[in-house]
């Protein structure tokens, strides 16, 4: 156990509805008693062809390789109770380390098959791409732990490129708290697609820190909520340097009594002229009982930049439905076509066909019924 982090976890209060970030969420089902004793060892399944020199394995077995970057992003300064919890109790996870100028052409995949009811799991993932390196990483979280708090630290160094697809499909009883943070260096690119499908509550903090000129990040995400699922997406496009670009699109489809809260922060620091930051959150609501909130936060301290943000909460379009049905498509077919169409821009970002199909299957199973 990391004692400092554990102390911080114990000091930080449990969020309540008075906390603006938590006002929409119901945490009464979250049981944290004896959490440190319920932590189960994390096992990972890895697949993909690993070129010479590339490290792709269990974090616990590659401590030396991890040393230079591990804990450099997720630190004791974290403000969230559940990040501190993760930091205190994590013991294993996965590492991808790609040396300078090495291009990993085939996708690498890591699956965290997490333990069952009552238990807790705290996987850590570290991704480092040295200058000029390229890789595609797929991360999948499944299982039914009562509590899951994970952290992913990503470092994309000068001129490196990472395509990164991450999805979770936990059981409907899991409370999932996830932090993912990418540091993007000069001329580097990170291209994320995130899928949030399962859990009783899933709160994701997804951040890109733009640290070098010419850096680009694409952050795309899809969230599906059914029954009483609670979905939280807290994104942060942090431009520490100018001449950087971040492009973000998160789309959610919500039905039944699902709850969703998107909060997107764009932070542009002083002397970061030439920043391009785009943020868009679109929500498709399929029932009257859905609660959906979306909130942009702009913290901008430079003058010369381009920044746009937009959010919508909408229903299926009656005229589009009528048009499709006037050609013989049943109501179910027409709805299905429109929901798929709504999510198409996210799925189109996934460069691996099998993963795109898996997203598609989950979308069908959850919201197209």
């Amino acid at each position, binding site marked *: 156990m990391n004692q400092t982090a554990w102390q911080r976890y114990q000091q930080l209060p449990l969020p309540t509805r008075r906390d603006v970030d938590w006002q929409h969420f119901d945490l009464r089902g979250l049981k944290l008693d004896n959490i440190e004793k319920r932590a189960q060892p994390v096992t990972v399944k890895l697949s993909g062809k690993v070129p010479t020199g590339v490290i792709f394995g269990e974090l616990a077995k590659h401590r030396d390789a991890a040393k230079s970057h591990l804990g450099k992003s997720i630190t004791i300064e974290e403000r969230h109770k559940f990040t501190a919890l993760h930091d205190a109790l994590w013991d294993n996870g996965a590492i991808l380390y790609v040396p300078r100028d090495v291009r990993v052409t085939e996708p690498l995949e890591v699956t965290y098959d997490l333990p069952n009811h009552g238990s807790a799991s705290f996987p850590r993932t570290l991704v480092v791409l040295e200058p000029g390196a390229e890789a595609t990483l797929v991360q999948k979280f499944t299982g039914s732990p009562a509590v899951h708090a994970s952290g992913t630290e990503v470092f994309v160094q000068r001129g490196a490129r990472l395509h990164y697809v991450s999805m979770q499909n936990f059981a409907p009883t899991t409370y999932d708290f996830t932090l993912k943070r990418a540091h993007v260096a000069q001329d580097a690119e990170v291209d994320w697609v995130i899928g949030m499908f399962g859990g009783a509550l899933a709160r994701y903090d997804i951040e890109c820190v733009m640290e070098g000129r010419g850096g680009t990040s694409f952050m795309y995400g899809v969230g599906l909520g059914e029954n009483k699922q609670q979905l939280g997406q807290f994104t942060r496009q942090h431009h520490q340097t100018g001449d950087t670009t971040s492009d973000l699109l998160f789309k959610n489809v919500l039905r039944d009594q699902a709850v969703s809260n998107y909060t997107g922060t764009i932070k542009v620091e002083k002397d970061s002229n030439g920043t391009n930051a785009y943020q868009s959150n679109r929500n498709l609501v399929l029932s009257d009982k859905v609660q959906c909130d979306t909130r942009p936060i702009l913290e901008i301290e430079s003058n010369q930049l381009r920044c746009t943000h937009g959010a919508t909460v909408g229903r299926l379009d009656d005229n589009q439905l*009528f048009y499709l049905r006037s050609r013989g498509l049943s109501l179910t077919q027409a709805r299905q076509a429109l929901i798929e169409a709504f999510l198409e821009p996210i799925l189109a970002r996934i460069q691996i066909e099998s993963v795109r199909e898996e997203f598609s299957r989950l979308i069908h199973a959850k919201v197209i019924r």
Partner: protein
Amino acid sequence: MSDTFEIRNLQAKVEDKPILKGLNLTIRKGEVHAIMGPNGSGKSTLANTILGHPKYTVTGGDILLKGESILDMETDERARRGLFLAFQYPCEVPGVRMSNFLRMACSARVGREIEVMEFFEKLEAKMKRLEMDEKWVKRYLNEGFSGGEKKRNEILQMMMLEPEFAVMDETDSGLDIDALKIVSHGVNELRGPNLGILIITHYERILRYIQPDVIHILVDGRIVKSGDADLAKHLEEHGYDWITKEVAA
């Protein structure tokens, strides 16, 4: 009975405003009818009511397709039974690919899954007739199409779905003369003993290219006059004023 489309004393409203006030019309397969009327006479209401748009409520009368009332049928069932509406303003559906959509629609129409090869062979042939670039099928349905492209796309769908009765709502609006010729050519090719067509239009222009068998004049929700092609010419020369006055008198 099996080859007619019949509207009987149809009354319909939008929100609480009565628009159609007892409209009668019978079209047999093989015939082309045109309904002309001034703005606000109920032309678009008629088109949308025939396909059961949820915004329009039928308050009286009946619509019979081959002798059977369609008023209790959902829009998609009306379509599968052979009714077609070429929209005045076809809507854009970003994210839905033309080819996927059309294949679904054609499969729904014939009641079986149409093979990919069979579908594309037919599609290519029809597109060639309409002088459409094959890139169109990969585009999203009507997204970013010009007004003329959207109208051509409506005719393409009509060719693919092979309806028994088609309603064409202001198909000529927004078309330049070249596009109008292409579209009219397409419609004329479809003309034949298996199809009845109802052209709804404000202007006589399209009727120079698609010659109707019967022309009706719609004023204030009723057909007030029916006649042959000369009626259209008369309207083109004298406008609608004389007929509205005649009706008022």
